[in-house]
């Protein structure tokens, strides 16, 4: 029998994988991918709670998360393309221009 806890553990593991990606990768494109993983982990958690408590609100908020993720990709990828045009690098360390 699969309970809510199973789903939440899987969502937590997904979130941990995304956090590992954010912490150890220096490629900016990989940071975007890891953000997608984090948002998807939250979506799975919302859908699981929605099912096991019989409430539709979780799924509605998952839709809003999907909308936020879509706009984040559009704006972020545009900024990343612009940054690559300027510096020729998608290294995270190239963003450190205010080093004191």
């Amino acid at each position: 029998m699969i309970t809510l806890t199973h789903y939440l553990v899987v969502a937590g593991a997904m979130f941990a994988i995304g956090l590992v990606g954010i912490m150890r990768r220096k490629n900016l494109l990989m940071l975007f991918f890891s953000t997608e993983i984090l948002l998807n982990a939250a979506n799975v958690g919302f859908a699981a709670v929605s099912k096991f408590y019989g409430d539709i609100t979780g799924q509605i908020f998952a839709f809003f998360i999907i909308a936020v993720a879509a706009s984040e990709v559009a704006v972020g990828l545009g900024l990343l393309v612009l940054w690559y045009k300027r510096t020729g690098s998608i290294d995270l360390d190239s963003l450190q221009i205010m080093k004191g």
Partner: protein
Amino acid sequence: MYEAIAFYLFSALTLGMFSVTVLSKNALYSMSALAGGMIFISGFFFLLDAEFLGVVQIIVYSGAVMALYAFGMMFFDTTQEVREKTECKKTLYTLSLFSAVLIVLIVAAPIMGANIEATYPMSAELGNVQTIGLVLFTKYLVPFELAAVMLLVAMISGIILVSKRLDHSITLHDEDPKEEAL
């Protein structure tokens, strides 16, 4: 029994795909693995009786977002090596500690929220799509419209950022904006 098999299969596949995404050196491999992981997540949604959410997940993530990444990657030199070195070990350990605490909170959340009552319960005679439509267009109409405005703003900003004078920096050369305005 069937649900258990599907759950464990999907969780193993999703976690494997996302690990490939995070750990792969090649950006193209990790993008493909991310697209696969999105499809398996929609499998979770179908398993959780959220059919509409699963279909939206396939269309939006595996379709739109992944196509956007694929076209965006054409602007980059993805074979370029990015140095993956971590100097600040202290920051890394602090963040790991925070994420461990976060995992504990996520797993313990059902215990804390044991007496949650459904505000908008799912009715048996209406399907998933009808219920979502009813709630989304009555109770959540204003957030829905705001999300529409946000998507419009994101679309306009994406077009402006990428397509305007691709070979020319729009932020570095601010000293002579007069002749560009024409």
